[in-house]
């Protein structure tokens, strides 16, 4: 097995911070920690090339680094790419993560790195890669290399990857399916007995934690405010012109309500499973409250209603979609000078 190994200038033995600007350099064979790594990977494995790059150059010229590194790795006929271990070195971790991701997707060979959980590279690349948890201390180099080598062999030989705790990688935050011997009922009763007895148990899912979103400041003067209506209840014009999916929607649409005081069921449809849409079909104002907002507008209680309303489907929508769509919708609202939004859900 042929391995290409990436190191920063420091671990590559080419200097400290004063060399952080150095361009990518190539060395035949193993260098520094790569020598031990080569031993640990076993007798049929050799580190064919070592790539060494300055930390600043790697981060500031990431695209150039990746392009030339990919070319070298391809030319070397590598079966495996390893970067680091990087421990807490942030620029090193980011470069190692970026290189591994590029190698994995473009060369389709395994690419593995190691760094501390607190390394910014871990945050950026933990989802895309297996990153061995190195801890913070470079004094543990030998032990980390041993775990890295062991895991790299496992991946190279297509062995089943165990849990993050067992295999020592940073949890990727992903889910895969597995068929198991015990039925869900047996697992469930096992769990409740363990919990009641205060024994350890392995939950099959972990609740995510979310940052608190602070309450936005109040609208200063509603009488002058420009208001927009947004819904995730899937109300779309007949024919669903933007083809907004009824579940896990990846798109949202913006629809004119200029000169309209009341939404009519015959002009709209619902692209949203999971709730009973018959009442909205009868009268879409039940979901997008145009009729009452127009009254408020006429009474002068709000300044002006935006000429378009925005709609998507919230059903079974992963956060990766909704975050992006939320950002896009907020950008649009900002561009239009919107002061306040009424967001209706189902």
């Amino acid at each position, binding site marked *: 097995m042929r391995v290409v190994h990436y190191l920063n200038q420091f671990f590559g033995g080419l200097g400290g911070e004063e060399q952080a600007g150095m361009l990518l350099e190539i060395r035949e064979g193993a260098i520094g920690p790569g020598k031990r790594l080569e031993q640990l990977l076993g007798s049929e494995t050799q580190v064919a090339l070592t790539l060494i790059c300055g930390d600043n150059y790697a981060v500031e010229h990431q695209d150039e680094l990746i392009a030339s590194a990919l070319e070298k790795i391809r030319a070397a006929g590598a079966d495996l790419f390893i970067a680091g271990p990087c421990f807490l070195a942030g620029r090193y971790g980011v470069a190692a993560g970026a290189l591994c991701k590029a190698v994995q997707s473009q060369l389709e060979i395994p690419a593995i790195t190691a760094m501390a959980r607190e390394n910014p590279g871990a945050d950026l690349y933990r*989802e895309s890669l297996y990153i061995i948890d190195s801890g913070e201390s470079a004094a543990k180099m030998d032990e980390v290399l041993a775990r890295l080598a062991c895991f790299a062999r496992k991946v190279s030989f297509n062995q089943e*990857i165990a*849990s*993050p705790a067992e295999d020592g990688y940073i*949890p*990727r*935050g*992903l*889910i*895969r*399916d*597995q*068929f*198991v*011997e*015990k*039925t*869900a*009922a*047996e*697992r*469930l*009763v096992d*769990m*409740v*007995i*363990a*919990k*009641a*007895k205060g024994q350890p*148990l392995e*939950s*099959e*899912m*972990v*609740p*995510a*934690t*979310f940052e608190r979103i602070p309450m936005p400041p109040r609208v200063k003067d509603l009488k002058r405010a420009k208001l927009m209506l947004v819904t995730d209840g899937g109300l779309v014009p007949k024919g669903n012109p933007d083809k907004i999916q*009824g*579940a*896990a929607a990846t798109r949202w649409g913006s629809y004119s309500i200029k000169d309209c005081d009341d939404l009519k069921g015959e002009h709209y449809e619902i692209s949203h*499973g*999971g*709730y*009973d849409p*018959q009442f909205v079909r009868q009268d879409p104002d039940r979901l997008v409250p145009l009729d009452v907002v127009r009254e408020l507008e006429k009474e002068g209680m709000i300044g002006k209603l935006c000429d378009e309303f925005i709609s998507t489907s919230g*059903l*079974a*929508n*992963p*956060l*990766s*979609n909704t975050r992006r769509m939320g950002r896009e919708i907020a950008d649009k609202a900002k561009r239009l000078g919107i002061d306040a939004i009424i967001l209706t859900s189902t």
Partner: protein
Amino acid sequence: MALALALHPITNLIFGDKHRLDGNLLTVDVNELRRMVLEDNAFDSVEFEIVRPGESCRAGPIFDIVEPRAKAPGGSPDWPGILGLPHTAGFGTTHVLQGTAITMLREQSPGESRGVTGYVLEMSGEAGSASCYSKLWHLIVIPHTKPTTPRHTRHKAYRMAQLRVAVRLAQIARDVAPADSQILDNFIDAERAALIRVAYVGQIFSRQRKPEPEEQIIYGANTDGMLPTLLHPNEWLDGAITTSYHTSIGGAETYFYQNNPIVAELYRRHQRGELNFVGTVVTIAAADNLDRERNTQFAAHLVKWALRAEAAVLTKFGGGVPHSDLAETARLLERDGIKTAVQVTDLARDHRVESALLFNFPEIDAIVCIGGNGTRWKLPRVERVLAANGGMAEILAGPFEIDSLNVAGVANQQGASRLRSVVY
């Protein structure tokens, strides 16, 4: 309240001119069953097919799967509230044609999130071996209702025909000595006083969809106006609950109410002296917050004060929103010192942990997660395709790709699933 299951294992199912049970061989008189089904004038005609375990066969879309069972005289009634008055289920003797199922097809795909194929019975190959149902002998009932039949009438006709066929067949076992029998009773005596008291809280419907007027879910009622209530474990097993007409969306079939894996597992541990199975609460997921508050408060209250449980297992029905009802009930129980474990489905279509659950209460930390979003199969062509019309047969002929959630008996929400999510 004791229920005796008289078990008649079946290892061969054939058509013949008279219903007979000879040892493990079950002979079915199709003409008699046809006459019985056609008494309901919603039907134009009906076909019956036998499918054997592991056969290169695919059938769909599935309406429901039912185990043929019949009550011996003197016990509770067959399917109370559906085939007779809604009197309490769950006592006396029930004859079971074990290893078989009456499987009713529907004429149209239920649509929505189930795609064009609907919910499929797959008997062979990789997908088949992942399904609990591929190990059974199926008597497939293929309905042809009159085109003018309203949807809700058609669904009810499917339900009635299926249960009548199932009971009729199992009745022939009433005069036959069973190969084995099982007594189910959750008595608690003085010696068991120290064991932990465990309850089961199960959702049987989600009001995300308004049930059809005559949709039969609990003792023949459609859950309109229903509050959580106590059920004896035997009621689950013996005909109190039938699944929603939209089986696939719930991930629940009547077969696994009759063979409820959670009730069975709690009984098993009860009988082994590991716990006290103190009873069950049956509940529904709400369509709005007021109902959700009311239901979850009632369910938790029953577990605490009526069952005096110290621990509870909870399951949900259907899709996303029922997570909230389940989690809120568990949160209330934990608040009152009752330890919980919950069973959920994986909602993360992007395979990310952050999207998997609709709750994040730290005290709900014992979670069984039925996966499914990461499992798809390419179904090959099979030798036999059973469907109610040519169009559907053509779609089901394959090859096509299918989500595990659309194969009956894989990502089951009643506790039968051997699929799980693994976080990595």
